[in-house]
Each structure stands twice: as C-alpha cells, then as structure tokens.
C-alpha cells in the first residue's frame, strides 16, 4: 500500500514538474503556465477551506486571509526590503495569528451562521485594505520587486528571479512545489491524531466534547492552519502579479474557494486540488465562448451539482472501497 502511494506521488511529481513543462514547451502555449500557477496557488487556499470543512464549518472567508497575506508580503518586501521567501511563512503566521483573534468569537457559531460571518469577513478585509494607511488605499501596492535569491550558508537554493530567463517557468515550479508541500502537510494532518479529532468534531461536536476532546482549542487550531494556507497563497500571488489591490481577493474568490472544495468532494484530501483545476480550467477554456462564458460555466456548474452532489471524487471509479457519508 505504501509503495503504491509513494509511486503515485512520484508519478504526480513527474507529471507536474517534467511532463507539463515539456508539453508546454512543445506546444508553445506559454499562457498555460500562468493558468497552472494560479491553479496551484488557488488550490493551496482551497486546501485551507477544506480543512475548515473537515471540522464541520463552512468557510467562505478565505479570500480575507489571502488578501491579508498578500498585503503582509507586499508591505514587507516593498517597504522593509525583506527577502520575499521569508515573507511567505511570515504572511502565513500573520494570518494564523489574525485568525485566532477573529476565530475565537466566531468559531462558536455553526452552520449557516458561521458561513455568513466568514462571507462578511471577506468584504470587511477589503474595506480594511481600503481604509488602513499602510495599504495605500485603492491605489494598492504596485511594482513589487521580483523574489530575490535565497541562499543557505552561501549555497543558493533559489536563484534571483530577475536574473532568470524564464520567470514564468520558475514561478510555475515554485508554486507547484509549494502546493505539493501544502497538500502533504494537509494529508499528514488529516491522517494524524489531530485529523481524527477533527473528524469527530465534524460528526458530532457535543459528543466529542463529552468524551474529553477540547473542541474549542481544536477549532481554533484547525481554523488557524486553514488561514495559514490562505496567507501563503496570497503572498505567493503577490510575487507573481507584483502588485496587490484591495480588490485582488473578493467575495467571488472566497465563494470560489468554497466551490472548489465542494466540487472536488468534501470527503477527500485531494478534492480541493481537483476542484480548483476543473473550475479554473473550465473557466479559462470557456473564454472562447465570449459573452456566453458565464452562462455556460454556471449551467455546467449547476448540472454538475445536480448529477454529482457529493463532488467529483465521489464518482464510482474513484472510490471502490471508500464509502463515507
């Protein structure tokens, strides 16, 4: 079983790190790099949303943390000249701390109430970004320098991006590696003691509290990890677009993160990844449809929900033995 899993992971890594760049170089569709980079970053944020689903909360507020993370990275890089690679964990930590602060009161809410509060949170973060002095208001922070070199003891781990010939490829590889790391962490969390406890929260919070699970603590932990992912994704986005505005992550993005999770399937760790790929690529491919793009997209979305209300991964071919409700 373990060998099979390892084999699968290696196959996936080969696919995304070797085959995809080769195919893109072959076909000359360089724009796909940007699409795929976005997919991998968005799927990191969706992974965070998925984790809050895992404790039985509907999170429509990931856009808020992505925005916050993006601003942290942008301010640190452009105003204080800190190395970008350092700001990724810093942005994540900032978001995690922020989410503890916000999460303590609102995680007491459940179901639709929590969903609504988080949705409002996204809008509030946008307003805060408009109002706070450090964020430069509606003008945003622009012309952020490309990531610098990262070296450990004089040994270059990541070269300076501005010296690279093909930054698109570099960004793609970085994002994919980041995504793989994040999903590995997520997978470890889900299959650890913490993950089992989270599952008990999802099924019945009172029951798990009654047998001694510290539910309040767990909720905050899960939510802060989720926001950490959001912050990481947001900070990486800043490096790619080299700019950030209050409208970089909006309510639509938050809703999309949630849709990604639903679409992939809430019972599966890699659901959000697949959901993001399908949604984002579907949207991009429909670009040729012009003004009917949104119509076709939403119709397909509705049809997909009608046919597969439990996510793509709940299709027969994917789960022969997993039957979890």
């Amino acid at each position: 079983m373990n060998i099979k899993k390892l084999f699968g992971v290696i196959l996936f890594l080969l696919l995304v790190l070797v085959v995809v760049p080769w195919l893109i170089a072959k076909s000359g569709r360089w724009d796909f790099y940007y699409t795929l980079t976005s997919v991998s970053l968005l799927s990191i944020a969706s992974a965070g949303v998925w984790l809050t689903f895992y404790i039985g909360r509907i999170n429509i507020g990931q856009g808020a943390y992505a925005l916050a993370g993006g601003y942290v990275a942008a301010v640190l890089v452009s105003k204080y000249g800190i190395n970008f690679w350092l700001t990724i964990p810093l942005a994540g930590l900032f978001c995690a701390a922020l989410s503890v602060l916000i999460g303590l009161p609102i995680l007491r809410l459940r179901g639709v109430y929590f969903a609504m509060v988080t949705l409002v949170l996204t809008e509030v973060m946008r307003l805060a970004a408009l109002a706070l002095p450090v964020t430069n208001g509606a003008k945003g922070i622009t012309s952020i320098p490309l990531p610098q070199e990262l070296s450990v003891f004089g040994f270059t781990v990541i070269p300076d991006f501005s010296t690279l010939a093909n930054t698109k490829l570099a960004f793609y590889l970085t994002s994919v590696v980041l995504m793989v790391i994040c999903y590995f962490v997520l997978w470890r969390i889900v299959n650890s003691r913490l993950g089992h406890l989270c599952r008990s929260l999802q099924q019945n919070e009172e029951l798990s509290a009654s047998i001694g699970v510290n539910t309040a603590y767990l909720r905050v932990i899960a939510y802060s990890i989720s926001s950490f992912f959001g912050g990481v994704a947001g900070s990486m986005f800043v490096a790619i677009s080299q700019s950030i505005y209050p409208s970089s992550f909006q309510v639509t993005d938050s809703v999309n993160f949630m849709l990604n999770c639903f679409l992939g399937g809430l019972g599966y760790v890699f659901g959000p990844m697949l959901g993001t790929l399908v949604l984002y690529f579907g949207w991009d491919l429909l670009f040729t449809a012009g003004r009917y793009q949104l119509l076709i997209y939403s119709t397909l979305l509705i049809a997909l929900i009608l046919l597969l209300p439990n996510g793509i991964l709940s299709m027969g071919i994917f789960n022969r033995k997993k039957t979890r409700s």
Partner: protein
Amino acid sequence: MEQILANGLYLGAQYALIALGLTLIFSLMNVLNFAHGQMYVFGGFVTYTVVVQWGLPFIAGLFVSAFILAVIGALIERFLFRPVIRKSHREESTMLLAAGIAFFLDAVILLIFGEKQRGVPKIMDGVLNWDFRIIMPYDRILIGVLAIGMIVAFILFMQYSKAGRAMRALAQDRVAAQLMGVEVDRYSMIGFALGAMLAGLVGGLLVTITGINLGMGGPTSIKAFMMIMIGGAGVISGAIAGGFILGMMESIGLTVLAIYGDITYLVIFASLMIFLAIRPQGLMGKPWG
C-alpha cells in the same frame, strides 16, 4: 438628528424587505440563498424594462417583476433545490447550488439587460421640507411607505392565511408538519417563490431611487446576510429587526463617522462580531438555527 433617523427608517424598511425573503427561504428549506441579491437585481431590471422601455405605469412594473421572480423562484425550487436536497449527503451542498444559481442569474442578467446602470424616472416630484430638519424627496417617502406596507401585508399573510400557517409549521418542524397533513413539497415551492418575489419587489422599488446595475447583486446579498445575523436566521421578526437596525446603523455611521473616511461598514462588522460572541443566535433566533 431627525434627518438621520428618517434616513435610517427609510433604508431599514427596504433592508427588512430584502432580509424577509432570505429568511423565509432559509427557515423553510435550510438553504442559504446566495442568489438573493441577483434576484433583487433581476427584479429591478424587469421593472426598468416594463416602465421605461414599454412605457407602462410603475405599479404594473412592480407587479410584473413580482410575478416573474415568483415564477423563477418556484422553478428553481422545483427543478434544482429539491433534487439536490434529496440526493446529497451533506446539506451544505445546497450552498454550492445557490452559488451556481447566483452566477447563472448574473449571466442571464448580463445577456438580457446588459451591464449598464439603469434607472427609472422619478415616480413623484417634490421634496418634503420640514423646517430644514427633515428633507426628503416625496418619492423616497412613497417607497418607504410602500415597503412598510408590504412588510405588514407579508406578516398578515404569514399569520392568518392557510398557506402562511402551513409555512410557519414547516419552519418549526418539517416532519411534524408533514404528519399533520401539510403538503411539504408544495409549500416549500410556494415559500421559495414568495421569497424570490419579495426580492423582486424590493428591486422594483429601489430601481426608482438608486437605479440598478449588474454589480449590485453580491453586496446586496452580503448586507442581507448581516441583517439576518443580527436578527437571527429563520425568524421573521428577527429579519425585520435586523433590517431596521442595519439601516439605522448605516445612516448614523455615514453621518457620524464621515470625518474618519469610509469606515462605517468596518465599525458595523466589528460590533457585529462582538455581538455575535455574546449572542451567537442573533437577537431573536433559535439557538443554532
């Protein structure tokens, strides 16, 4: 001060009407209708088409918009929500569906009505000027009074008609209502249609004052969510209270906090968080909805 209160009342009446539709749908089907703002925009555009392009009186536009939205709501319930609720493992799947419908309505509005800002000419001229303490155009007063009248009509309908009683029973306990002989499917559909109709009516009312454009759907939904969080989801009195409270807060905030810049909604949200930490179910909501 009187001016602020009058503005707040006027805003609150409209907000309450939006929140009523949302809370009705929520209480009946446990569905958070993301598409509510889009339904509101749709109603506004229908009214615009009837009044400006066809040249019919405003009241006809209001009726047409209410009717069309009710039909749309009924169809959405019958062919989309009902099968999904029946089939899915987790009831949150309906949220995905609601978001999909929101996108869909956005697309339909874009294709039919275009992305331009539209407005209906004033339905009444003149301004009420009470000693320069309250200055308010007559059309705003008319719209506010109409909105309050509709709220009253809705409450009366829910309290005294057979359909209203059936829907209240459904909201309280679905299974018990079914055992007492309430046709659950039929009244779910009527309830959804009624909720959508209310959204359409508000859209029709507001198009005369603020006009309407495609981008208004999402923010309207968010405001409606805030209102039913303040009042408590699924409770009619809560929705009305939430609407008026938000209207007042917005009106006061826009005046008092104007010197600090555009932070009214930040302040409202922060106070909402504190409020929810103390009382998670809202003013009048049942604990855990």
